[in-house]
């Protein structure tokens, strides 16, 4: 029993050549499987039918594109990536991926894993009655055949055969494989049946390579059964088809088969001729394999690089996502606070505006009636009714009312100035004004008061002295200063109002009294504070708004307010004001 050994080797060789053949070739799917891929691949749907072999941005799509291009390593990386990711894949997608994975594993000779993968695919496929499911039976059958599990292979291939469409391109291979299973199982009749059918089908599809394979395996079938006369023509046909198919491994097998056959027939010359042809091909295959290995190595590097790239890209994408998320949340927090602050600010502004408005309305609306009361009282007093004069009590109360109205009027005016000044809304229109004229306008209202209080008043005014000031604010200051001077001067006291030239740029207005005076340190420490007031000669206290306002208004006019005072010795207030750049003639 010398023969079966080489035969088996020959047979295996033929078979194995089938497996390695498909390695670098473009993968062909059955039409059904292809349509199922197209149905469930988001990439194909998105890009249209032309995209079936073109890479896109979707991993699933790229997996089957790599697969069909024969770049099974890349395909495998992507398939693993998809199944590891938490992304949800529909049942059909899983089925497709399992199938592809099984085929790749098979080609990597990881048969056990391939069987697991394909069995799962079959389970899903039959359960959901996918039209392409029977094709997987054939693939699984082939895997078993490669594993030399001939009975299992035959079973699955028979199962396939039972539901297979006749006339599909993959039919001859599967029939042939079924025949091979039976050949190994030594069920010669079934083997012959299927191998001859495979031959016919290959003939029908004009598949030279398939015909070479069929011929050689049929030859082996007969030869194993010692039907040499039947075997010989098929060996020769096989050689002829192998030559035409231009496929080195199968040609090599054809030569080897013939060499063994002639050797057994003791026709050594012929055997040696075929053996030599076999050796020749062996060398070229060896060369080709070396190139193959180099290419494979390169490919592995490329795959590793691509994997690295994919990983880096994923990491980068993740990083971008994280940064984006952080920025987004920061923006969210930021805008929330901005919104909140803006709202609060709006509210505060609104409240402040309301306050200012209330203040200005109040003071404005009070200002006029108080002024009218003051005017009417003044009128009555100046008309000097004899009846009134004879009744000192009435006269006094009228007089006090007049002073009160006057002071309230000043307070109103001060408040209005103060509110507007704080708002930055106070009228300010600096112009050239003669100091004497300003003083005359202000003094007009105070002469009667001083007469009433028996205060001696003296003016020492420089003629034609001009200041560059805002009239309204300086009048307000003068009113306050005069009011203070009168307030703190005892009856019979003295007030001197004088003006003069400070230097070429400035002039001064001075109000000096010999009244009760006050402690200036309290003034300096907190001149803007409200309620910083001293009781006057009648024991009344003011608001203390006056002097603070005066300082501010004089400052606004580019002037200075200097106060010197000594308790019991009177007060001297000097206001230094700028003169116009060019003095008028």
């Amino acid at each position, binding site marked *: 029993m010398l023969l079966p050994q080489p035969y088996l080797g020959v047979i295996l060789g033929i078979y194995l050549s089938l497996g390695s053949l498909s390695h670098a070739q473009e993968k062909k799917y059955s039409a059904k499987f292809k349509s199922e891929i197209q149905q469930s691949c988001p990439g194909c749907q998105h890009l249209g039918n032309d995209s079936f072999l073109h890479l896109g941005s979707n991993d699933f799509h790229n997996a089957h594109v790599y697969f069909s291009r024969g770049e099974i390593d890349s395909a495998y990386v992507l398939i693993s990536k998809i199944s590891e990711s938490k992304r949800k894949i529909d049942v059909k997608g899983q089925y497709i991926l399992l199938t592809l994975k099984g085929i790749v594993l098979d080609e990597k000779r990881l048969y056990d894993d391939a069987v697991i993968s394909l069995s799962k695919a079959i389970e899903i496929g039959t359960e959901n009655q996918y039209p392409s499911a029977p094709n997987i039976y054939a693939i699984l059958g082939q895997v078993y055949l490669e594993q030399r599990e001939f009975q299992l292979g035959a079973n699955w291939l028979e199962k396939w055969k039972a539901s297979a469409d006749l006339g599909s391109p993959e039919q001859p291979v599967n029939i042939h494989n079924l025949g091979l299973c039976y050949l190994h199982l030594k069920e010669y009749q079934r083997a012959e049946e299927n191998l001859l059918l495979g031959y016919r089908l290959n003939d029908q599809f004009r598949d030279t390579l398939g015909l070479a394979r069929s011929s050689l395996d049929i030859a082996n079938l007969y030869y194993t059964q010692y039907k040499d006369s039947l075997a010989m023509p098929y060996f020769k046909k096989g050689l002829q088809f192998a030559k035409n198919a231009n496929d080195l491994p199968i040609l090599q097998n054809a030569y080897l088969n013939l060499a063994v056959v002639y050797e057994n027939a003791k026709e050594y010359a012929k055997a040696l001729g075929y053996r030599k042809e076999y050796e020749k091909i062996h060398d070229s295959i060896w060369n080709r394999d070396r190139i193959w290995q180099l290419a494979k190595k390169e490919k592995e590097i490329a795959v590793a690089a691509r994997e690295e790239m994919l990983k880096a890209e994923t990491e980068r994408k993740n990083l971008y996502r994280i940064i984006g998320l952080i920025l987004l949340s920061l923006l969210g927090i930021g805008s929330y606070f901005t919104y909140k602050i803006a709202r609060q600010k709006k509210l505060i502004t609104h409240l402040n505006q309301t306050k200012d408005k209330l203040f200005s309305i109040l003071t404005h609306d009070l200002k006029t009636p108080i002024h009218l009361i003051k005017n009417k009282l003044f009128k009555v007093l100046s008309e000097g009714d004899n009846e009134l004069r004879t009744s000192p009590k009435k006269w006094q109360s009228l007089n006090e009312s007049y002073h009160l109205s006057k002071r309230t009027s000043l307070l109103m005016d001060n408040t209005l*100035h103060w509110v507007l000044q704080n708002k930055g809304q106070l009228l300010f*229109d600096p112009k050239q004004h003669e100091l004497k*004229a300003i003083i005359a306008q202000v003094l007009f209202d105070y002469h009667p008061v001083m007469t009433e209080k028996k205060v001696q008043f003296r003016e020492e005014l420089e003629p034609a002295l001009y200041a560059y000031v805002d009239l309204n604010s300086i009048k307000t200051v003068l009113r306050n200063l005069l009011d203070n001077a009168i307030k703190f001067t005892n009856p019979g006291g003295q007030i001197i109002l004088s003006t003069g030239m400070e230097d070429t740029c400035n002039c001064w207005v001075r109000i000096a009294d010999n009244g009760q005076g006050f402690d200036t340190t309290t003034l300096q420490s907190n001149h803007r504070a409200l309620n910083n007031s001293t009781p006057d000669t009648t024991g009344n206290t003011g608001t203390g708004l006056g002097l603070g306002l005066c300082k501010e208004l004089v400052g606004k006019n580019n002037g200075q307010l200097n106060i010197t005072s000594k308790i019991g010795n009177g007060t001297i207030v000097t206001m230094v004001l700028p003169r116009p750049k060019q003095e008028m003639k």
Partner: protein
Amino acid sequence: MISNKIKIFLLEDSDEDISQLEEVLPSRHYEIIGIARSFDEATSLFERLEFDIAIIDIFLNGRPEGIRFAETIYRSNTKKPFIFLTSSIDKEVFSKAKMTDPSNYLIKPFNTPELLFAIELALERFLQKEGAFAQQQPVFYEGSFFARDGQSLVKVSYEDIKYATVEGPYCSLITERGDFILHTSLNRFMDELKNGPFIRSHRNFIVNLRKINKVYPNDNLILLSSGEKVLLSRRHKEEFFQRYKILK
């Protein structure tokens, strides 16, 4: 006879303010020739009345109608000085008012000197002679001059001038409305009057030819219709008679 009072037009809706103005102004020789209480009233009066200066309240019934009326004056062919009257000291109000180029502002409440000073300053600013009245200088304007007379201001038409003479370093003006001492030289005064019927009769005299009753060349004397006498000097005699004949 034309009044020498400065004519004032009022646009004011507050009775209190009107009564204050009516009380003060006439007593200081100002004449209120019209009071409008609304914008419409003001525009119709504006076309009919001849006034020297207007006092305009910015707010009428709470609306800044005064500014609207000021715009009417501002755009008219005969520009007139006007004063804005307001109780507001809010910058915003003034920035709007400023666009109409007012001559002055007067803030309520105001007292008499404030009112008079505001009017004087408005006229000075309008005629670009700021500080003139305080220095007793006349301000000439369209056949008249404004000058301070005691505490008040008068407008004197050239026609009312009888003659002008020298009074120390100043110039004394004798008019139908009384005498004025002006702090200006007779020569400068003559420059202003040269387009009118005025002639220099003497180094110290300028005389209105229309006021002459009779001339006594031998006595070097001119007798005016009012009975006053003006000197005629030999140096000015020839020139005097040339113009006197033409104009008489």
